[in-house]
């Protein structure tokens, strides 16, 4: 590890994009307002000037078709990075994502593959209400043929894109909108990182808090608070929701015997349910207490701050659920 450079999550992604465009002439970036506007969350700012309008392409508002065009271009030898401004709009492109990107390789008997990267912002917390606050990463993780990654750290923001571009499959990158301003140190030569394992972000022996993406900072804050109260929580960052790294989760829970899952998705049918099911299937007898879930309330995200706060997983909720989990006597 060389000395770190101060940077932000946003800049980490931007430099990953820049490097990808420099490294491989097959790479191009396409999406709504990635160019002249300067990028929706300013992630792509400056790339148009550097790489020109052929490789940094502003698209019309046509989610289904520019995603589908990304699939076609990938099948035809390019390495497109398609940006869907926010995952809320990915619903318009779901046919292309599920019926084409996820199936073509299998359906063609392996003759074609779709080395496509789709980036989208996800998550709530900015009071933008029901149609702009979805957390759909767990939902997309249901679909075989896709890979779904959720960078939560600067290192992953920078490195996952690189690896995703080297993957011959469609990889969906969900960037939590509240992370863009996150700052920290990143080695100047930070490179690719694997995109198929979970990682323990904090060691602990009493309980495992399993989470990912925008909830990781909350989980770490909760663990900090719990430590004050004498509870040593291990925090596992799933990193990739499909394929799910069952081994790492099971190893952690086999050590701690208790689990709390924190997931910004709506509770029912979220990835938290799948993690619970895996724990039951793989280490049922290691569980000393029921698995707890801290998820979003089952409401279309409301605008008002106090309601939105109440609808989303908060540090206090995580602390409470974890306390509850550790205080349960087997």
């Amino acid at each position: 590890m060389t000395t770190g450079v101060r940077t932000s999550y946003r800049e980490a992604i931007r430099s990953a994009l820049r490097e990808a465009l420099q490294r491989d002439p097959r790479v191009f970036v396409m999406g709504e307002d990635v160019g002249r506007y300067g990028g929706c969350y300013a992630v792509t700012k400056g790339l148009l000037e550097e790489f020109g309008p052929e490789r940094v392409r502003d698209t019309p508002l046509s989610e289904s078709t520019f995603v589908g065009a990304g699939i076609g271009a990938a099948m035809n030898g390019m390495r497109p990075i398609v940006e869907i401004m926010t995952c809320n709009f990915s619903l318009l492109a779901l046919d292309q994502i599920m019926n084409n990107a996820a199936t073509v390789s299998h359906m063609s008997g392996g003759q074609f593959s779709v080395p496509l990267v789709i980036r989208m912002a996800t998550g709530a917390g900015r009071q933008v209400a029901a149609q702009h606050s979805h957390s759909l990463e767990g939902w997309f993780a249901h679909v075989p043929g896709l890979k779904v990654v959720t960078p939560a750290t600067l290192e992953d923001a920078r490195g996952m894109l690189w690896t995703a571009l080297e993957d011959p499959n469609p990889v969906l990158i969900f960037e939590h909108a509240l992370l863009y301003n996150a700052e920290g140190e990143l080695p100047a030569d930070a490179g690719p990182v694997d995109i198929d394992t979970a990682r323990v972000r904090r060691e602990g022996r009493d309980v495992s808090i399993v989470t990912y993406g925008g909830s990781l900072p909350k989980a770490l804050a909760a663990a900090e608070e719990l430590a004050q109260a004498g509870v040593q929580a291990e925090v596992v960052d799933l990193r990739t929701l499909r394929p799910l790294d069952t081994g790492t989760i099971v190893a952690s829970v086999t050590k701690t015997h208790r689990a709390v899952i924190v997931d910004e998705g709506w509770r029912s049918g979220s990835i938290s349910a799948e993690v619970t099911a895996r724990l039951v299937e793989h280490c049922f007898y290691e569980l000393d207490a029921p698995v707890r879930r801290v998820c979003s309330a089952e409401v279309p995200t409301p605008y008002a701050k106090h309601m939105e706060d109440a609808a989303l997983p908060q540090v206090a909720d995580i602390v409470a659920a974890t306390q509850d989990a550790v205080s349960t006597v087997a």
Partner: protein
Amino acid sequence: MPRHTEDHRLHLLREMLRIRRFEEKSAELYSAGKIRGFLHLYIGEEAVAAGVMQSLAPDDTVVATYREHGHAIARGVGMGPLMAEMYGKAEGASRGRGGSMHIFDAATRFVGGNAIVGGGLPLAVGYALADRLRGDARVTCCFFGEGAVAEGEFHESMNLAALWGLPVLFCCENNLYAMGTALQRSESETDLALKASAYGMPAWHVDGMDVEAVEAAAQRAVTTVRGGPGPVFLEMRTYRFRPHSMYDPELYRPKEEVAAWKERDPISTVQATLREQGALDNVALEKLEDEVAREVEAAVAFAEAATLESLDDLARFVYAEGAAE
């Protein structure tokens, strides 16, 4: 028929001023942190909402976008509930759940506040279909930006409304940009009325900076729709004076272009006409501004005094209360 009397012209001026001043206040309150989330201002485009609404009857329906304060105010949604909504209060138009982008008002048949570009178009087709099936003579007026024209839902909705002869007035607000994307970078054919006529419906365009022209065109369009069967497409050529939203650094358009359009401010234009006619002097204008200012202030006071929804009611309305009638 449009009523080009001085009184009516004054009315149009008042409507536009109500929108303008309300939004200027909103911008201020946004900076003060009283309003949050996304805020899309309509400033510069007031002639469109003010002009079109004149042609609609109370029983007609309005489907709007996320840039809908202008539509809501001109339609008659109270400024108090509108502002309270942006404050996130229980007395807000949508009980604090919607915010700026999701103003709803059943009383004036104001159906959003839709923040998915193009997403309101199918709803409008459905509203019109219901009216047609029941034999109601209503018109559904659907606003959308020129950016929405590239979306598949635009195409499907135009076709379905024309095919089924449904009473929809498609009001395309062509302000030349979709966020930072200029019309010529989003449409292979930039003459939108021409494009629309390929669906076999009457389509024309109008100067969206001229409130009287808008009113006349809308009147003619609404009359055509009401005469039926079938929709009409109206392209309003307009411009937003402000950034797309409060976050937009406006890198994509030259300052001169903005300045040139500001020369055509629809409010100044009507004021000038009225002054020429001797129907408006400084005193009258001040009085008018004063009345509007008081309405805006009252709305702010209402919003400030309004209450927060109880968190016990967080999940209320996720499912409708009671059985359907």
